């Protein structure tokens, strides 16, 4: 949640207040240091952003309004600002998400969502997805190996029929597994609640630590708005 708040604050900062963004990047970096995430890991994992940045970089070349030149480049001022905004804000968002996913296991994330009063059903569905994604991908792999063992290699459009059949078989199998899992749950007295005893209430200190980053960002936003 802290990550979400941080992203919202940083996205709502106008791009012209460039001082604020320097502070945001510093803040993320400090948090990652505290969390003992090696900087290379942080950078490698944020590479996922590149395809999005690519389009943002093209933006200044197309647009309307005031133009100006940097060296050989002829750019549009407004588009440049918009692109810079996308790149900076996007990078901030990705970095904070990377910090979250590196420090927190999927299981803890789900517990967190549960604590934040996300509907129980959604948390349960996500929990099961987490548990069965491996089982189903293993099944998919076994089916792929079985296909290929009988001489099938997907080469083009004409093979889509086979792949579609395989996908539907996988779907039916997953559906049937769902039925069996439900039976197994009923057999152990399932009435609609998953055990939550293992989750502990978050102490105030944890809340404060968690909110430190977005609060810091918010204070910077306010101060740069006041000064600038």
């Amino acid at each position: 949640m802290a990550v979400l708040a941080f992203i919202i604050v940083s996205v709502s900062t106008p791009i012209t207040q460039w001082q604020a963004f320097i502070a945001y990047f510093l803040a993320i970096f400090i948090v990652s240091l505290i969390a003992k995430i090696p900087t290379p890991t942080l950078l490698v994992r944020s590479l996922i952003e590149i395809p999005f940045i690519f389009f943002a970089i093209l933006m200044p070349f197309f647009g309307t309004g005031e133009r100006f030149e940097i060296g050989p480049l002829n750019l549009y001022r407004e588009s440049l600002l918009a692109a810079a905004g996308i790149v900076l804000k996007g990078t901030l968002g990705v970095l904070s998400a990377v910090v979250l996913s590196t420090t927190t296991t999927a299981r803890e994330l789900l517990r967190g969502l549960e604590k934040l009063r996300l509907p129980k059903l959604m948390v349960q569905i996500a929990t099961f997805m987490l548990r069965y994604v491996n089982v189903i991908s293993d099944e998919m792999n076994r089916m792929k190996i079985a296909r290929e063992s009988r001489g099938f290699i997907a080469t083009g459009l004409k093979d889509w029929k086979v792949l579609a059949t395989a996908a539907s078989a996988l779907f039916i199998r997953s559906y049937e597994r769902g039925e069996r899992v439900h039976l197994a749950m009923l057999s152990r007295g399932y009435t609609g609640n998953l055990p939550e005893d293992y989750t502990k209430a978050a102490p105030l200190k944890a809340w404060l630590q968690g909110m430190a980053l977005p609060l810091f960002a918010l204070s910077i936003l306010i101060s740069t708005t006041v000064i600038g």
Partner: protein
Amino acid sequence: MTNAPSLLIQELAFAYPDGNQALFGVNLRVERGERVALLGPNGAGKTTLVMHMNGIHPAEHGSVSVAGEVIDTQDKELLRRIRGKVGVVFQDPDDQLFMPTVGEDIAFGPYNMGLRGAELDAAVDEALALVHMSEYKDRPPHHLSFGQRRRVAVATVLAMKPEILVLDEPSSNLDPASRRELADILRSLDITMVMVTHDLPYAYELCARSVILKGGVIVADGSTHAILTDSALLEANRLELPVGFSIQ
């Protein structure tokens, strides 16, 4: 209550909604502490019978009672109690282990039975110790071997301290060592047990008594030794001892 059999099935018949009748009047009485093997060919109705033992399927005709209580699938409170008394271990441990970690999965049953806090922890630890899997408590199930998952599946049910343990094909897909380890664990439990299996040597090893289900009725009921040495009976029910295996 003390003299009531653990499981008493009388004239149980059942047809699936599509009209396919699976059971035609099953009678079975299992005394407390008995270990019974339920044998029979594929499609004999074994799994359907198991689904009646804990009230997943309602008894359409006849009755099923557990420790003296007749199962009524309309009575939710009774059903909860019955499901605490009859522990079913399903064939595919991936169907049984649906929580993110082994410990949480084992906690699922006792939690539904109303245990909380330290009591819940104690039940989980005890069940894990019974199947020698204590050190795997915080591991996700998909990181375990198949044999380990099967053992955890047994523990998930043991944690509910059931009156009867019902196992569906407990030895299927296990390597010989896992198979033997599971047998040792099952033998060490002081509990009534119904074991659905095709693995006749396994039945011989673990259960003094066997019943054969075929075409939705019980066609034989006796000592495992007597049944497994009656080759005509086995042949008539599509059951075979492994090659080279003989019982004197």
